[in-house]
């Protein structure tokens, strides 16, 4: 299938130079630094965005504050109806938006489509949730009293997204925030501003058709000097959601914490797959390879470590190498469906990949496959690398850090499954984990309280590729936040406890006597 990028840009309303600030249907002619977006696929310039100034930021926050006062009064199911229409609008543009995600970010087209499908799925989820924003009725200790809890809208939600899921993460946050009665200000990654603009343009007709106030869905493409510490420190924004590195998340936690705001942090991972002697090895290899090289190793849930029992280590290692040999012929333009692995986002990521390969050798590891930059026809952008397999030990400094590239470390364990779990947990991060075993005891042990310490613990499937229905996030340096499904909607709301006295006396709690 031939994808015509110019036709896609035209259909999505992306021009050569674009405005980078919107409060919904309205766009602002900004005066900030020009952000030139180039494709990691072929290195070509795609389009420019005029980024925000501090004045633009202030204008947007004021619009958002005013919009919140109206939006919170719209019944939640009506807010859900708007989100339903947003989901449908995204459906109409699934091919175009998926292709632009692929071209601007570098993930293969199928994954670009998958990302847009996630946006649609979370909109569907949020529509249902809009009729189920439920509190609880509790039992009062006092006669003729009713005790209950309810949830109210919170206010402005700041959303910081990363380049690797440049639009899905916005959807996870904003669909739930919108049905909760909140308004959002989105700071997209500076590396992928065009897909953010395209998303805003896709939804704007829905906002016009439904008379949604300007300021409910805001987009601000801005440098960290404009949308950085000031954004995090802004008391008018009760919740900041950050998807990104542990470093940025820690900064957000400090600055938002200082003003006693709320954060939702979804940060780095160092995800491991454990393969026990009781595994279906063929299934384990197939699944794990998707986890290690999918999105060229640039998912927060990418499998970084594979912990293999010594009895099957040689067999699994050799199978991995064979699988990678097949992958080696499938690295190329992500817009060409014959390829399974696209480029890294830019030259910095390539440098850090090469540096990690060097470091693992220096620390005593052994590279057994790949690790080089690809050159030649089709690789002119310089961003394509051969995925790397290295034999390593868990305590290596390089293994303890997340390298956002396709390098996987094979680690041997001996004895029972607890030893593998201990290795898995012995890293600062705690996002995703998986075990391959057909042994029920091992599987249950892995997900028990003494098992994986991650936010996601899977059995007989890999670490990446979560569904929107479950809460997504992790522990330790991953930040502790939960986005997307389950009861993640609660973070976008404030909880209120109500006690109502419908009697004619005034009994105090705990039986306290206070007679005047």
């Amino acid at each position, binding site marked *: 299938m031939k994808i015509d990028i110019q036709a896609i840009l035209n259909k999505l309303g992306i021009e050569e130079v674009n405005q980078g600030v919107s409060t919904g249907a309205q766009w602002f002619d900004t005066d900030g630094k020009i952000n030139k977006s180039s494709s990691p696929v072929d290195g070509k310039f795609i389009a420019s965005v005029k980024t925000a100034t501090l004045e633009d930021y202030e204008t947007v926050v004021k619009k958002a504050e005013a919009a919140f006062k109206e939006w919170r009064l719209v019944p939640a199911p009506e807010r859900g109806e708007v989100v339903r229409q947003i989901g449908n609008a995204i459906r109409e543009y699934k091919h175009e938006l998926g292709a632009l995600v692929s071209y601007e970010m570098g993930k293969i087209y199928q994954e670009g489509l998958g990302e847009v499908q996630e946006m649609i799925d979370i909109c569907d989820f949020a529509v249902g949730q809009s009729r189920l924003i439920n509190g609880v009725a509790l039992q009062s200790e006092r006669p003729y009293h009713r005790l209950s809890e309810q949830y109210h809208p919170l206010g402005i939600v700041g959303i910081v997204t*990363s*380049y*690797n899921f440049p639009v899905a993460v916005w959807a996870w946050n904003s669909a739930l925030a919108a049905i909760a009665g909140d308004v959002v200000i989105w700071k997209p*990654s*500076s*590396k992928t501003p065009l897909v953010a603009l395209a998303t805003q343009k896709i939804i704007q007709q829905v906002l016009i058709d439904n008379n949604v106030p300007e300021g409910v869905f805001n987009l601000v493409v801005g*440098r*960290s*000097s404009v949308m*950085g*510490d000031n954004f995090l420190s802004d008391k008018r924004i009760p919740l900041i959601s950050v998807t*990104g*590195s*542990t*470093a*940025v998340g820690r*900064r957000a936690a400090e600055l938002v914490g200082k003003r006693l705001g709320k954060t939702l942090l979804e*940060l*780095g991972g160092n995800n491991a797959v454990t393969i026990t002697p009781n595994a279906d090895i063929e299934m384990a290899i197939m699944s794990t390879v998707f986890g290690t090289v999918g999105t060229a190793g*640039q998912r*927060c849930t990418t499998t970084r470590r594979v912990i293999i029992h010594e009895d099957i280590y040689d067999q699994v290692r050799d199978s991995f190498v064979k699988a990678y040999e097949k992958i080696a012929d499938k690295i190329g333009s992500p817009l060409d469906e014959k390829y399974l692995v696209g480029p*890294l*986002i*830019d*030259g*910095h*990521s390539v*440098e*850090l990949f090469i*540096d990690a390969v060097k470091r693992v050798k220096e620390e005593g590891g052994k590279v057994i496959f790949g690790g080089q930059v690809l050159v030649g026809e089709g690789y002119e952008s310089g961003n394509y690398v051969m995925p790397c397999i290295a034999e390593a030990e868990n305590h290596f400094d390089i293994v303890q*850090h*997340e390298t*956002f590239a396709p390098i996987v470390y094979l680690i041997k364990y001996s004895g029972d499954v607890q030893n593998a779990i201990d290795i898995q947990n012995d890293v600062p991060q705690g996002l995703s984990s998986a075990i391959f075993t057909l042994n029920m005891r091992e599987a249950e042990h892995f997900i028990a309280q003494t098992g994986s310490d991650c936010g996601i613990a899977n059995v007989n499937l890999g670490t990446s590729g979560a569904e929107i229905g479950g809460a997504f996030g992790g522990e330790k340096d991953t930040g502790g936040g939960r986005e997307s499904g389950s009861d993640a909607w609660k973070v976008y709301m404030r909880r209120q406890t109500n006690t109502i006295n419908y009697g004619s006396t005034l009994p105090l709690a705990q039986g306290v006597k206070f007679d005047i």
Partner: protein
Amino acid sequence: MITKEIAIEDLVEDYPFTVLFLKEKGIRCIMCGEPIWGTLEDACKEKEFSEEKIKTIVEELNQLANK
């Protein structure tokens, strides 16, 4: 000219060589594929570098940038 007040985002964009240079000094400017937030000084202070050391790093960066 590079100063300690430069945003990391601008530093790595305008002077790409700084990513590996600072990594050797223990400062990871790019994490999860994105520049970290804050200034060069913020990043140095997070590593508890002294004012003297920060000054030296800025001088070295400028020397490399002018090569």
